[in-house]
Each structure stands twice: as structure tokens, then as C-alpha cells.
């Protein structure tokens, strides 16, 4: 029996010839990322709960402060200081104020074929480069940090064949929301979502990230693309090389296969408060909004900012709407500046904020109040995710968010 990409990566990390779905293996972890969501807790456990604390390989660790960046209270400042000091003492790669952790990892570290743990659910993003990234809690992270290893259950794989090309005004963000609406919030639980076909290969790495990033919203362990020439080019442009260029074997076993014609995808939104309550934008048109957000590890990349700028150029957002824009990293920010996008946003009445988790995290900036409605390119629309528990979050593409900010209500961009 052949192997899927996921099975090959896990077999390599377990140093065995063959792995199959359902097996449990001890693996070596190639890279471990932790952010300010939980790193302070991991440090407390490391310092106070172990008999003989020691880090297996500090060169594999990356700490990133991005969730409450810059600090919004003395409490967060204290947590940040703990992380900063620990990173310095133990010579761990450390970033703060540089962008959202997954964007930084993609720009600086991820290599095709690696098995990566992140103490953040959206670590599944790294599959855009053909790496197996998966989210873990801080206890799992601690174990991996001190032993260099962990156990994994080899996942079943769902294969998504993507063909054709998007029509005008439709984006990969609409596709992944459509897929999650079809298979449900637990539709890929414990599994890999693998994307293949001409439609997959045509996507930029940035757009692939919009798909793999949300795999966890369908319950998946990871989302992954076969690393192709675009992945190799991306790595080389960022000064890196693949670890392995694994492809799924022709006789690999898939639990289920799905077929999507990209030409048939419509602009959609996920309605509050469930990620799989996905409907055509038309069916919620005229829902009044108070705030709009473009950013996050899902859709805060240069591709998204270009889409938004095209719509907002020479236009103004509605008087009663706040539009916040947070580029996913400082390098995205810099590129947007060079391309003149920031001027367009400011002229349109948007607030451009620093690169961080921002409104999507619902804690450090752009929090919404009771009864307010947000439309967002963020990752989640859970009840209270962006602020007050009686507020509402709609998720859509950068185009839908930009057009809605102008109209003051939810509308289709095209």
C-alpha cells in the first residue's frame, strides 16, 4: 500500500519505513513554535513542575509574541517579560512586534517535509509548503521541548480535488468556507485535509495558506498541499530548501475524496456563531455592520490587501463603520507600503494597525461591544470571539469585507 504525504512525513519523523493511518508513533519534532497565548504557562511548568528541566535542542524552538502585541495591561506585560527573559536566557529564537506567528514561521522557518508542533491551533497553516504542522497545548509543547519528541496518531486523509479557476470576485477564502460548510465543523476531526489538482497548483503559497490555515476549523489535524515548483520557489526566495519533497503515492489510501470545481464557488460568509453555518453572501445582504476587519493568520497577506485595495481605491467607508486593517507581518506591511496600498486604506478611512492577531483574537484591539456586528477575514466566529458575548461575527473574504465596509452592510464585492 502506498502512503499519503502525511504518512510519509510521520514515517520519516519516526525513522521508520512505513506508517499508516491509525498507528501511534513516537516522532522527533523538527520545529516547535509557541506564542504569548500560552508560553508563559509552559515556562511556569518548566521552572516549577519538572525534576530535571532541560531543553532537548534549543535551535528547534521559536517563541513569538503576537496575540496581545503590544501589551495592553500590566498583566500581559508581565507575561511578555517572562517569555522574553526565558528566550534570552536559553538562547531561543524570539520575535515580538514582527507579525502573526504563523506568517513569521512561513517566512522564516517552515520547510517542506518537516513535522512541526505549534502551541496554537492554526499551526496547520504550514501545509501550504507541504510540511505537517499541527497544534498542541502547552503540556504537549513542554514534553516536546524537553524530550524533542512526542506521540502522534497517524491521521486518515480526506483528499480534495480542486479543478477549474475562480470567477471574478471569488477567492480561496470563499472555497475553504464553502468546504467547511459542506463537511461541518467536525467533518475532518483527527484527519488530514489534503488539497490536490490543477486548481490547487495554480494557487500562490499565500492563497494556499488561507486553505490550510482553516483545516482546524473542520477539526483537522492538518491541511496540506503537495510541495510543487511554487513551494520550492517560495523556499528559495526565503533562503531555504525543502527537507523532503514528499508526494502522495498513486496507490495511497484516502478515507474519502471530494471534488470541487472552483468555477462554481460563490462568495460566501460564515454566519454567527458557527463556522459551518456558511451561506451565499446574497442571503445575508443588508445586514448592518459596525466594524470590519482585514488581517489575521488566515487572510492578512499581500494577496488579501491587494484585493481590498482594489475595491477601496478612491472610495470611502460608511460613516458608521470602523475598518481595521492589520497586515499579517511587517514584511507584508512593508510590501503594502511599497505598492501604495496603505495610502489607499487611509484615504478610505481605515485604521491601519500593527501586525498582530488584532481583532481576530478579540482581546487586545478592536474589541466589539454588546449587540455589535463585525465582518472579518479572521479565523473564527464563535460566540463572543471578538468581544461582548452578545456581539456577532460574520466571516468572509477580503473582498466581501472591504465592499461591506463601504456599504455599511454586508454586500457582495462584485
Amino acid at each position, binding site marked *: 500500500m502506498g502512503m499519503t504525504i502525511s504518512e510519509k512525513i510521520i514515517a520519516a519523523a519516526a525513522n521508520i519505513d512505513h506508517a499508516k493511518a491509525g498507528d501511534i508513533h513516537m516522532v522527533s519534532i523538527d520545529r516547535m513554535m509557541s506564542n504569548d*497565548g500560552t508560553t508563559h504557562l509552559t515556562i511556569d511548568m518548566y521552572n516549577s513542575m519538572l525534576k530535571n528541566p532541560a531543553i532537548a535542542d534549543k535551535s528547534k524552538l521559536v517563541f513569538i509574541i503576537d496575540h496581545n502585541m503590544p501589551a495592553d495591561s500590566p498583566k500581559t506585560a508581565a507575561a511578555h517579560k517572562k517569555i522574553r527573559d526565558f528566550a534570552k536566557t536559553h538562547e531561543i529564537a524570539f520575535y515580538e512586534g514582527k507579525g502573526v506567528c504563523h506568517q513569521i514561521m512561513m517566512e522564516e522557518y517552515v520547510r517542506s517535509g518537516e513535522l512541526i508542533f505549534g502551541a496554537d491551533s492554526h499551526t496547520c497553516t504550514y501545509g501550504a509548503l507541504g510540511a505537517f504542522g499541527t497544534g498542541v497545548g502547552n503540556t504537549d509543547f513542554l514534553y516536546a521541548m524537553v524530550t524533542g519528541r512526542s506521540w502522534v496518531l497517524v491521521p486518515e486523509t480526506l483528499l480534495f480535488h480542486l479543478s477549474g479557476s475562480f470567477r471574478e470576485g471569488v477567492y480561496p477564502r470563499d472555497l475553504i468556507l464553502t468546504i467547511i460548510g459542506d463537511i461541518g465543523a467536525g467533518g475532518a476531526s483527527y484527519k488530514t485535509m489534503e488539497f490536490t489538482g490543477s486548481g490547487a497548483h495554480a494557487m500562490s503559497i499565500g492563497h494556499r495558506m488561507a486553505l490550510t490555515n482553516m483545516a482546524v476549523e473542520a477539526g483537522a489535524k492538518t491541511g496540506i498541499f503537495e510541495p510543487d515548483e511554487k513551494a520550492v520557489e517560495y523556499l528559495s526566495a526565503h533562503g531555504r530548501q525543502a527537507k523532503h519533497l514528499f508526494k502522495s503515492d498513486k496507490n495511497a489510501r484516502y478515507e474519502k475524496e471530494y471534488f470541487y470545481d472552483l468555477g462554481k464557488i460563490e462568495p460566501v460568509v460564515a454566519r454567527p456563531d458557527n463556522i459551518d453555518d456558511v451561506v451565499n453572501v446574497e442571503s445575508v445582504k443588508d445586514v448592518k455592520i459596525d466594524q470590519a476587519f482585514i488581517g489575521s493568520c488566515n487572510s492578512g497577506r499581500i494577496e488579501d490587501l491587494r484585493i481590498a485595495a482594489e475595491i477601496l481605491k478612491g472610495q470611502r467607508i460608511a460613516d458608521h463603520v470602523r475598518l481595521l486593517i492589520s497586515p499579517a507581518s511587517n514584511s507584508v506591511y512593508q510590501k503594502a507600503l511599497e505598492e501604495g496600498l496603505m495610502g489607499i486604506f487611509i484615504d478610505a478611512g481605515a485604521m491601519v494597525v500593527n501586525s498582530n492577531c488584532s481583532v481576530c483574537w*478579540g482581546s487586545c484591539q478592536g474589541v466589539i461591544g454588546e449587540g455589535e456586528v463585525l465582518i472579518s477575514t479572521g479565523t473564527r466566529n464563535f460566540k463572543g470571539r471578538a468581544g461582548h458575548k452578545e456581539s456577532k461575527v460574520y466571516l468572509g473574504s477580503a473582498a466581501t469585507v472591504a465592499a461591506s465596509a463601504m456599504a455599511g452592510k454586508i454586500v457582495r464585492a462584485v
Partner: protein
Amino acid sequence: MVIKGKIWILGDNIDTDIIIPTEYLAMKRIEEMKKYAFSPLRPELAELIAPGDIIVAGRNFGCGSSREQAPEIIKELKIGCVIAKSFARIFYRNAINNGLLLIEHSLIPDLISEGEYIAAVIGEYIEYKEAKYDLAPLPPNLMEIIEAGGLVAAMKNKNI
């Protein structure tokens, strides 16, 4: 291992922002956070839960963020175990790593009523209103972690 307790029912897709909303994560101690557990959905629930009670939920319990405060807070409320049709995978690992017992069962969540009592004999069966329902054992590597009281305790047992 036998767990017996009073049932509290929650629905499908109980996410980590419902288990503990982001705004309370900055609190220093889990003990302070615990009264806000499930507050977006049922603000009264955390006060009503008594040690040994059992949460029964539908599909995809614990979906969303990797925040480990979610299982920690359920442990802090001294919930005996969570029974659900399915669990989100990060939550599943986090719960086991914190010594919180989870039981995946496709039938039970549709059969029970809130306030009734239920018993689970781990690896053998669940008993509800004098009927018994089969219960598959957990993989041995996970049972080892639960029995140690969590992954950190299991690490200490190995002198880490």
C-alpha cells in the same frame, strides 16, 4: 476505574471560547477563572456544578483554540469526566495531558437527561438507568498518562 455522577448536558460544537472566553485568560490562576466556565452559553452553570458531576455533550466538544485552560478549568470544577459523541483533537490531547478523563460514545448523548445519574466503568461499560452500554478501552499510552494524573506527572515518574 469507576466514575459516577450527575449529568449536565451541553450541545454540539462546544468551543474553547465557550469553555473559557478569551477575556478571562489573563487571570493568574485557574481557580479565579473557573466561575466563568461556559459563561457565554450558560452563565449559571459553573456555580451549579458540584465535584464529581459529569458533562455530556454532542459532537466536536472542545473545538477551536489550543488553550489548555479549557480542560484545566473543567478539571478545576472537579468534573468526573466528559462524555461526548466526539472531541476536537487538540482538546482531546490537552485533556488527557491534564489527567481529565474523556469518553467518546456515539449513543449515550442522545439517551440521557440532565440531572440524572450516570456511571462509567473505564474500558468496560457505561451504566444509565439500569441499562449497560459497551465502552472501548483507551490506548495504553493514554491510559498511562491518565493514571499518572497527567503528562507532567508521567514525566516526573520517568525522572524528567
